[in-house]
């Protein structure tokens, strides 16, 4: 199996010939090791992207220019977006997938263990490319994370570094997704049909298909920018017969499914946690599967609602408006199912459940502001305003991030073998939810009053809400360090966790001891 010197000829007891130290992590093909590395990497990138967000909020604390010059400010908004989307949220859920999918379906490992190692180790070079582009002449890409031409065709070498980073991140996530699809389709324990898979596995199966379908389209779009910049093509250069609006169509053909690539695994985690702490099976399992699939399919035909202001024919605007509103139906099915799962359940409010309920409230709120934005007539007023910023932070932070925290607290005992500090966990939740709303709720008002996004300065009438938002942002940023403390404490020690520390939890992952041994399910369990 493993082509490690000294280990190749003793395939049976390769446990004892593992390299130690750093090389253990560089050469590992174990899904649990790789899952842990994904999770640590995404948390590190979350802190990097978070510091960038704090630079933005520090600049916006008061009107006028105080902290960074406008060019750096634009670089901060761009890198914050790219790092949080591709470096923090996506790898976090790939980390969950790596750790939990084989345990949930009773497989010994991911289908392609060597490729799994590659998928992870492509991430650090991409992260280095992105962050070090701040140091090159001209600075990092400053076009916003959507990388719209003509700006992206004009910028310096930092832009090329961002393009290569997006290429590498794309290849990594495609390889990760191929691995997940193959594992889920071919390696389930005997007796586990597709409709008996835990919902987290279903959401990842759908997400992985989305990644395989749209990440190559993004790779194509940034490749077109690259050839426009250096090889004389004119895909987006109007002077050469190209069209910058074409880029927006291609980008959002990727970009809208990307929103669900981030959201759907979050739905999966919450669908595991809420039944466990309601001590009831998930309400409407089959409808959850169909609703998730419908969301994924609809995500391909609504992209132009991100670009109502480019000058679309009215018929186009109407089509994209109604198609977008259609997505509220399967999403509503999911929300009602989660609520129905809790209905008359025997609820208890440990940290994972708190984060899931926080997710449920705030994600729904973000969904409603999304519904407001789907209306063309309204969107033309709110386009590129802080209302949009508030909307997508409600679905990305309170949606995806809170769900990731719910999952982390839920499975930490399985990963470490210790119970985490419940008091600190609850503190983390309450600090997060208060400061999150302080940061982002007021941004709705700023947007409605007309404050544009991605501008380092603003008119005086926006001063109070911006100050509140900035204080909230620093509070939110610092509260995330509580999570780091909880995880480190939990790794070092704490109350011993049993194989199944949550009495309401269901699934094969709770049949293996805690911490999960390095090798599990070498002979597949029989699933009833």
């Amino acid at each position, binding site marked *: 199996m493993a082509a490690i010197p000294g280990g190749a000829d003793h395939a049976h007891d390769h446990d004892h010939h593992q390299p130690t130290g750093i090389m253990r992590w560089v050469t590992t093909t174990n899904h649990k090791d790789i899952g842990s590395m994904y999770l640590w990497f995404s948390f590190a990138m979350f802190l990097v992207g978070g510091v960038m967000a704090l630079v933005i909020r520090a600049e916006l604390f008061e009107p006028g220019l105080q902290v960074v010059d406008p060019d750096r400010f634009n670089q901060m908004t761009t890198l914050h977006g790219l790092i949080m989307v591709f470096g923090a949220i996506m790898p976090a859920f790939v980390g969950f997938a790596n750790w939990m999918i084989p345990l949930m379906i009773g497989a010994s490992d991911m*289908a*392609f263990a060597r490729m799994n190692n590659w998928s992870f180790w492509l991430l650090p070079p991409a992260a280095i490319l992105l962050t070090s582009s701040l140091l090159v002449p001209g600075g990092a890409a400053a076009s916003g994370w959507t990388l719209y031409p003509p700006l992206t065709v004009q910028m310096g070498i930092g832009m090329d570094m961002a393009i290569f980073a997006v290429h590498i991140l794309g290849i990594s996530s*495609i390889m990760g*997704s*191929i691995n997940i*699809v*193959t594992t889920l*389709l*071919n*390696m389930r324990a005997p007796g586990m049909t597709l409709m008996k898979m835990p919902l987290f596995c279903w959401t990842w199966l759908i997400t992985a298909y989305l990644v*395989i*379908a*749209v*990440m*190559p*389209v*993004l*790779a*194509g*779009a940034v490749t*077109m920018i690259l050839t426009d910049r250096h090889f004389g093509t004119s*895909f987006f250069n*109007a002077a050469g017969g190209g*069209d910058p*609006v*074409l880029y927006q*169509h*291609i980008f959002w*053909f*990727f970009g809208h499914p990307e929103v669900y690539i981030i959201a759907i695994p979050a739905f999966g985690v919450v669908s595991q946690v809420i039944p466990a702490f309601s001590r009831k099976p998930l309400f409407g399992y089959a409808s959850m599967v169909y609703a998730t699939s419908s969301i994924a399919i609809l995500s391909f035909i609504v992209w132009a609602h991100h670009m109502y202001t480019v*000058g679309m*024919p009215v018929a186009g605007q109407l089509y994209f408006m109604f198609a977008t509103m259609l997505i509220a139906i399967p999403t509503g099915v999911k929300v009602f199912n989660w609520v129905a799962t809790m209905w008359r359940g025997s609820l208890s409010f440990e940290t994972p459940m708190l984060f899931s309920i926080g997710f449920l409230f705030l994600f729904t709120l973000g969904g409603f502001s999304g519904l407001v934005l789907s209306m063309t007539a309204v969107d033309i007023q709110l386009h590129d305003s802080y209302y949009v910023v508030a909307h997508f932070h409600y679905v990305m932070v309170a949606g995806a991030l809170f769900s990731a925290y719910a999952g982390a607290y839920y499975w930490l005992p399985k990963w470490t073998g210790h119970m985490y500090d419940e008091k600190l966990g609850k503190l983390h939740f309450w600090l997060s939810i208060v400061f999150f709303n302080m940061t982002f709720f007021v941004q709705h008002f700023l947007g409605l009053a007309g404050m544009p996004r991605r501008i380092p300065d603003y008119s005086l009438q926006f001063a109070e809400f911006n100050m509140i938002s900035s204080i909230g942002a620093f509070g939110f940023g610092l509260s995330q360090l509580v999570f780091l403390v909880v995880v480190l404490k939990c790794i070092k020690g704490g109350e011993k966790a049993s194989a199944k520390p949550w009495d309401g939890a269901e699934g094969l992952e709770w049949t293996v001891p805690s911490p999960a041994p390095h090798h599990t399910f*070498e*002979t*597949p369990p029989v699933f009833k």
Partner: protein
Amino acid sequence: MTSPEQGGTVSDRRNRSTLVRLIVSAFLMFGFGYALVPFYEKLCQVLDVNNLNKQDNSLPLNTQVDRSRSVTVEFDANLHKLPWNFKPVTGSMVVHPGEVVTIEYEVSNTRQSAVTGQAIPSYTPSAAMQYFQKMECFCFKQQTLAAGEVRRMPVAFLVSSSLPKDINTITLSYTFFEVPGATAEAAGRDGSAGTGG
């Protein structure tokens, strides 16, 4: 129960075929991104949107013209110690407030050398001045005429629709003054243009 070795080979084969199908899908989607380029162009062409080559023959419509009123504009030309001939091509005309009108003046240099002049406009009644808007005028810059040169120069203007009701006639009068020394300077500029002066 199958032994791991046997299970491994069967599942390995299935995994490999899934892998191949998924990799092919990824490459096809990469191609699809590029296929969107001609697809977009074709779609724009069929729907006749976003056509940059389409000629727009409709003149911009001026909706600000007040056709219920007419104002007579008279054109006058004077020379101040300048050996030129200077006269309007049209002596006077009737315009509607808000309407953009272009007229011409003709000037000729009777001297045997180049002369530079500057025209200064004045209005009668002087209250009309703020309502008389010139978009283009030879008076915006100095005019240098070579020996014996004849030139026609346009004036594009409109009379604002907020012109007071009691003004029915406006006289626009230009006086050309010689700009002393400017001709030599202009000639010097022209002569040394090649050396980047």
